């Protein structure tokens, strides 16, 4: 009876497993919905591992249930009193030895598949890679597109990484404070950002789309809200994005936005943020030169719209308690002007 119950729960477990895999197969931050070469290789590997593991599980549990069933017919006797014991002993040795041998073979197979997958992932393939520098901060991502020929054209942005489809991207990473981990599961596994070390990784997006990534190493209060987006787009679109990001912020033309610029420069904003083309050049917060072109604010926490931006400026601590951005006491007119100005930073 008990064996039956256990069997039923095993069947149920298998059902949940399959259903779960199905659910996990879609999503903009999911390891099983690969959109890049590396993630695709890993997801094939995952499928292989899961299926093999499930088969092994079913076989071992079946063996256990079979043993329990056979045992239920035996007399309630001690081994010493059991005359059939020596015969069974021989059978058991045979079974256990072959099970151990089979396990060893399966583990060797696992090893072989693992190591060859790891090897193939370590080799950058395809076109000349695009280089991007990422620096982790508590709790946002600094992103740079260095232009070695002309340093003036280096693009600085935050929490949003645009990449061309089909071209490998080579990322150099380090951290400004504690250890973070760069992880966009649709494209690749994770890599740590460690202060005092420079780490490197690469990936290639094969399908255009917007993929979310998140810090995967515990890094303090707002570890939970340290996300970023990778925008994979066709080459031409990416090039035009890069060109537009290289330009400094345009001078506002309407009077409201001009007032907003004055608010930005005279209030505490300019103490931490920089906007190229203005006097604001501080590097403690994300670069805001092209803020309005980004999809989200507060490290992928809120969609970038006027309402959210206003709420974030006035009271960031209710959205990300512990974040380094202080609350700002701005009167409504100043806030409206500031929002209008930030809206022009395309």
């Amino acid at each position, binding site marked *: 009876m008990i064996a039956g119950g256990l069997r039923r729960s*095993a069947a149920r477990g298998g059902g949940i497993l399959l259903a779960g895999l199905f659910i996990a197969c879609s999503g903009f*931050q999911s390891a099983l919905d690969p959109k890049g070469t590396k993630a695709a290789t890993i997801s094939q*590997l995952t499928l292989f591992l899961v299926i093999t593991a499930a088969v092994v599980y079913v076989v071992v549990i079946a063996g256990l249930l079979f043993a329990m069933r056979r045992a239920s017919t035996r007399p*309630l006797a001690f081994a010493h009193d059991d005359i059939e014991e020596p015969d069974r002993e021989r059978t058991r040795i045979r079974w256990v030895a072959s099970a151990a041998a089979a396990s060893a073979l399966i583990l060797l197979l*696992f090893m072989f598949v693992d190591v060859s997958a790891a090897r193939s992932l370590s080799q950058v393939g395809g076109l000349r890679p695009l280089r991007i520098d990422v620096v982790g901060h508590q709790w946002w991502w600094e992103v740079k597109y260095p232009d070695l020929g002309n340093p003036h054209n280096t693009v600085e942005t935050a929490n949003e990484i645009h990449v061309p489809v089909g071209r490998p991207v080579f990322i150099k990473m380090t951290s400004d404070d504690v250890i973070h981990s760069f992880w966009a599961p649709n494209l690749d596994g994770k890599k740590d950002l460690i202060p005092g070390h420079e*780490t490197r990784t690469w990936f290639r997006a094969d399908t255009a789309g917007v993929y979310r990534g998140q810090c995967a*190493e515990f*890094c303090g209060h707002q*570890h939970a809200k340290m996300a970023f987006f990778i925008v994979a787009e066709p080459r031409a679109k990416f090039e035009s994005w890069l060109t537009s990001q290289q330009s400094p912020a345009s001078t506002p033309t309407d009077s409201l936005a001009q007032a907003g610029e004055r608010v930005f420069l005279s209030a505490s904003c300019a103490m931490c943020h920089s906007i190229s083309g203005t006097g604001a050049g501080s590097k403690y917060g994300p670069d805001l030169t092209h803020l309005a072109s980004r999809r989200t604010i507060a490290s992928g926490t809120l969609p970038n719209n006027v309402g959210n931006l206003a709420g974030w400026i006035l009271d960031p601590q209710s959205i990300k308690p512990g974040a380094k951005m202080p609350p700002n006491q701005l009167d409504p007119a100043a806030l409206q002007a500031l929002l209008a100005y930030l809206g022009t930073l395309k």
Partner: protein
Amino acid sequence: MAHAQALPAFNDPDRRPGTLTIPEEDETRARLSSSWDEGSGLWAWLTSTNHKSIAKRYIVTAIIFFILGGLEAGMMRAQLSRPENRFIGPDLYNQIFTMHGSTMMFLFAVPVMEAIGLYLVPIMIGTRNVAFPRLNALGYWMYLFGGVLLYVAFFYNTGPDAGWFAYVPLSGPQYSPGKRMDVWAQMITFTEIAALIGAVEIVTTIFKQRAPGMSLNRMPLFVWAQLITAFMIIFALPSIVVSSTMLAMDRLVDTHFFNPAEGGDALLWQHLFWFFGHPEVYIIFIPALGMLSSIIEAFTRRPIFGYPAMVLSLITTAFLGFGLWVHHMFATPLPLLGQSFFTAASTAIALPSGVQIFCWIATIWSGRPRYTTSFLFAIGFFFLFIIGGLTGVMVASIPFDLQAHDTYFVVSHFHYVLIGGAVFPLFGAIYLWFPKVTGRLLSERLGKWNFWLFFIGMNVTFFPMHILGLMGMPRRVYTYLPEMGWGGLNLLVSMGAVIIVSSVAVFLANVWVSLRAGVPAGDNPWEAATLEWATTSPPPSYGHLFIPVVEGRDPLWDARNGELAVVTGLRTDRHEGLLTSIMDAEPEHRYEFKGPTILPLLLAIFGGGAIILAIFTPWGVTVGSIMSAIVLTCWFWPTISPDHDTPRHRRRERIA
């Protein structure tokens, strides 16, 4: 149930194993009682050096910490039950998850496994006390003070908040201001001392105090597991001693072990921590394997199949366990070839576990199992641990681990390993040995509820976490956004946690009811084979009335139709035990155990005081060391008891 149908041999009062018809039996009992009983009252409690009373405290304390850790888990699950929940803020959440991990690893799992060993090993191998009774008491006090320090600090909003793994630089001086992480580092110091003491006790006791005839190849598998674990502790814990001290020094006296700008390295911490941290898992898991062997043997009435294979598997696991630590660091900048070695070791360690599982299945196959609660927990182990083991082989793969690392997939994996692989055997062991320790049986009815609720709750809680992890949910997040689509599964997980909590509540009720009105157990309610069942339940302060002589692996089954041979002639008017040789357990010497004393408590107070004061001023170390030195001087002061049986003493007697 089947276990009620005892075999005739066990019911025949004249032929119960371990009961002997030696004329002076009553007199011996009285004399042993008068020299070993420690009396009652506060003073006796504070000065006790008897391994049974200390181990009982140890177990109860560890279970209290288990409950506290469980409550913390419950609070985390309440917070995560829906997206953007505002039940707990990030500051408290970080403290709680750090407390949960630290409590479960340092204050529950390792201590409870050692404590059960400290209770059972001496009785199982037929000796009267552990090798160094006063040191043993010191170990308990250190452990208690460490745990109390952590929880008092937590109540005063000084709970550590950088994770139980305390990665620098987050746990370092710059990013963890205040005393929170200092408390953590010092709590580690306390529990390290306690664990090392326990390990030294267990190794020495097993090597030198086995009953005559219990050669190494006749030791119960539980004793083997304890021995191997103790060796692992001795090799693994120094690494965390070093690293937690380095962290404390970085924070308190401005050293630069982990400061990259001054030649330190943040990765150094990870290597040192995981060199301890991975064997730690096996330190928890191997004693549980020993418990499983005891359970399966008792309830199938078969000796465990493949004894040499079992022992060799345990030893192999222990060796390989030291070669896995880098698989916690696959995302760090280490060369791929180097990492691949750790993939190999992590894969290989599945093999000895597999061999043991096959041997147990073979044991069940040939016996006739009795489905008591204890045995059900053992069966539950197979269903849960194999899942954890297989996901463990999966995360040994570098590419897959880079997706699964630090996500809920890993949370799920190690809860299957640690709950399925260690807590289930532990509960099975409690149902098995509770009658021995207390003299009363636990209720089987409540036990079945306990098991099924735990089994179902465990799967409802942890299985969906695999999926959550692959859906991209990282660990250690205090909240998540609604649009991530993790809300439904998280709610399910939180409901599962409620089921686990109710199961533990049933267990506590069961213990409560049994202590008040449980069925008296008798000496050997399960008709098991090992020596702890030869003495009364609960065992007297001196363990066995006569030290047994062992002639096989299953002494009580061998003695079923005859009598258990015993050693006579040891002195009963003082704490005397027999020392035997390491390999074959041939009698070598007599040995006097030290009796009750307050010194361990004093040393714990002064030594512990030094460790705690050091958080606030370096002078704490100086003052505490001087005080401890005074106590240690008393401790090691040479004493000769008036009836000491040495030639020198006899000579003096002659002179007198």
